[in-house]
């Protein structure tokens, strides 16, 4: 199979807006590694939902996507992509100094309304810009768009590790497998929407169950990011009577991408500067179980109100997060001891990890558990749940507790606060024994897998 091409679907990175999250980082890291190691074989492609087919990308376009520069591929694909004007306006408002001014001059209760009006204004400008540039954009439509069927040959490999459930690419992928005979490698991050539909937004789990099943039908290989996810996928395949492809495990990497971000400017930094604090990092949503931490902090406050530690909850707002945040903000005893940071960038996160005492992660269920890996990467001890993949990511270097056992969480946190020498020795143990899985290591593991499984000896 010397002429076998490797198609890498980079749609998720292309369509993604905002800070790169785990899946986008994973996709980009692997894309870069494959590009560097098999440049002649690799073909990057985009899936267009509107046209229900794939488009091959030029190296220049790929490099723009990988470096977060806005690119225009064609009119259907760029329909919802910010043009430079909108992007630049977004960058202006996202600047930490402007953000702080905005927060200071406008009362907090009007923030969301202002943001809504600002976005509407941007969209209005964007619409005008789109109309004016319609002709120019049309000229940018690539003349050499090839239909998927013509691009792919039997035994070519198609790799997708992005948000396939949103992309809607699997029907076409299945057709390519069936009709053309391509080989496919897809990713399974977790089965949480199936196992715990209560932790996902309404109707999301329905869509995901269909996606998981189609994924099983479409794949020759599925890369699971943990043993736990692999076991969940095995159980799922049995339940739905779907065929089982070859399952491999490649743990995902976790290093923060701080090179391009210099400023540390998250809201509330002044409240914790030069103070001891405990950090928890994750999207704020019910599955992450911040409620346990709130309950624990009530106990800690009751035990010693003067020395009650600070908990910094860092993460984007997920769904069903308002009630808990309301309770924390309105809790006159605890609202100075629990600080919620929604706007931390990677540099902020790095600062938080480096300066915290230790981290806590009481999540009910994970596919991998990046915050635990990040904590260990920065040499910080973590008290984590004992569920799902968390024992794997922990490498026996964390304390693992039942996420529902509030008393144990309280005791363990209090113990670390009162026993700093113990905390120090636990950190030393991490420094000595932790084997980090960086994005690069993960990408190289993936490269090895592709080379081995598809018998690619040289580029």
């Amino acid at each position, binding site marked *: 199979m010397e002429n076998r091409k490797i198609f890498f679907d980079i749609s998720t990175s292309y369509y993604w807006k905002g800070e790169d999250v785990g899946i986008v980082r994973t996709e980009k890291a692997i894309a870069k590694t494959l590009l560097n190691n098999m440049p002649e074989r690799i073909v990057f492609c985009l899936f267009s939902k509107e046209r229900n087919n794939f488009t091959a990308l030029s190296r220049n376009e790929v490099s723009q996507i990988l470096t977060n520069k806005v690119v225009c591929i064609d009119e259907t694909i760029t329909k919802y992509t910010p043009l430079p004007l909108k992007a630049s306006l977004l960058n202006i408002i996202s600047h930490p100094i402007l953000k702080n001014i905005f927060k200071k001059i406008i009362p907090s209760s009007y923030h969301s309304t202002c943001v809504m009006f600002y976005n509407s204004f941007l969209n209005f400008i964007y619409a005008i810009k789109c109309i004016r540039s319609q002709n120019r954009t049309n000229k940018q439509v690539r003349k050499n768009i090839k239909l998927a069927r013509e691009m792919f040959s039997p035994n070519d490999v198609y790799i997708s590790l992005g948000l396939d459930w949103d992309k809607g690419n699997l*029907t076409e992928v299945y057709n390519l497998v*069936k009709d053309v005979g391509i080989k496919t490698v897809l990713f399974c991050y977790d089965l949480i929407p199936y196992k715990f539909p209560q932790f996902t937004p309404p109707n999301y789990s329905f869509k995901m169950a*269909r996606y998981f099943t189609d994924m099983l039908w479409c794949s020759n290989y599925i890369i699971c990011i943990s043993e736990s996810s692999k076991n969940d996928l095995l159980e799922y*395949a049995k339940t739905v009577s779907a065929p089982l492809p070859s399952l491999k495990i490649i743990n995902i990497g976790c290093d923060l991408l701080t090179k391009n971000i210099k400023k540390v400017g998250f809201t509330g930094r002044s409240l914790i500067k030069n103070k001891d604090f405990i950090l928890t990092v994750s999207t704020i949503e019910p599955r992450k179980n911040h409620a346990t931490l709130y309950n624990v902090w009530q106990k800690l406050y009751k035990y010693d109100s003067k020395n009650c530690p600070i908990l910094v909850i860092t993460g984007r707002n997920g769904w069903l997060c308002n009630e808990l945040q309301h309770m924390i903000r309105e809790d006159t005893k605890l609202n100075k001891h629990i600080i919620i940071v929604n706007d931390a960038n990677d540099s902020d996160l790095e600062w938080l990890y480096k300066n915290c005492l230790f981290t806590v992660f009481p999540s009910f269920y994970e596919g991998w558990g990046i915050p635990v890996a990040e904590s260990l990467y920065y040499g910080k001890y973590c008290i984590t749940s004992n569920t799902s993949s968390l024992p794997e990511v922990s490498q026996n270097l964390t304390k693992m507790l039942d996420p529902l056992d509030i008393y144990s969480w309280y005791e363990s946190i209090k113990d670390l606060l009162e026993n700093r020498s113990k905390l120090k020795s636990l950190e030393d143990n991490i420094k000595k024994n932790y084997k980090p899985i960086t994005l690069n290591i993960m990408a190289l593991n993936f490269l090895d897998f592709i080379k081995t499984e598809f018998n690619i000896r040289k580029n």
Partner: protein
Amino acid sequence: MVKILMLGTYNIKNPLHGGQIRVSEILKKYIEHNINAKYVAIYNKGSNPLKSSQNDIGIHLLAHKSNVSLGLIGDLVTGQQIVSDDNLFNKLTKIVLDEDPDFIQLEQPWLFPYYQKLSIKYPKIRLIYSSQNIEYKLKESILKERCTNYSSIIKEIKDIERDVCKKASLVIAVTEQEAVQLKKMGASKVIISSNAYSIPPSPSKKKIAYWKEKINQDNFIVFVGSGHPPNTKGFMDLLGPAFGFLAPDQKIILCGEAGNSIYNYDHGIFKSLNIGRIDNFGIVKNEDLTAILSLSTIILLPIVEAGGSNLKTAEAILSGKTIIATSIAFRGYGEFKNEPFVIIADTPDDFKNAIKKCLKKDFSPNFSTDRSGEKYKKLLWNYSLKNIPTTVLKLTKKQ
């Protein structure tokens, strides 16, 4: 001329489900034999507002004392209401007296309370009981899944069934096994007339072309069923909870009211998956159904409960297609169970595996599709019902 007034709890204007088809075929058979037969339906207006003939009586059913849904026991309640409501009783009795029948033939036992009350004043009208199932067993299997307070209902049905057997001059059973049970319940004379099928006229080329384009699958599976709850239950028990055994481009074609029930079934987390793997056409006209069946490659008979015999089985056998069915589906058609075109699968895994196997590209059925042989004639109504009118005529001569 012998006169028979047939009474049942559903109309037969456009016969769709097995019971309706059977009744209309029996009626036809009587008429063919110069028997003056008429059918009157005492039906629930709430569930079926259509009237099949002038004589039909539509009634608004009142709740049963157990509060069990009328959708499950409407037939039983109809029989009770017709005797407890004097107006209804008199209305039906007027029809009976106008017809002046030699026999009242009850389709299923539900209207036996009416006959019982009528015969006190008019003992000369004789009774034919046309059984379709052992009803108390079937009802028990339906109710036990859906409610708790059903034991007294089952006892009521059992009593009615026993009494109708004892009182009837002739009992018509659909299978040999049921004939034995009906005799045990007190029936003195039992004949067997199995469920069957009439080969419909071939669909037009236009219809075939229409459905071919609409379904757009070369190799597809069909399930046809009425709204009878066991049809949905059987399908979901054997193919559920998730239809992930079907590839993303494979769909099961559903026809009949059962299709609507399966579509609206509570699939839970597998809702999107399951809905994506079925194409529900609901109730379709006979010509359309014939066209769909002719294009299909596999017919499913996932029957896990119910008594009687399933006339869909006769239809499937005569279709010339591969059949995936449970053993229960072949009750009454035992001699066809080992035919090469029949795959018997009684567990969910076996059923799904059989479907997967048949949908594979390389699956090539190795059997003749010719169904003109002598043994297949038994599957036609013309054959299966022939002993009913002759037996009835003999009964009148004896008298």
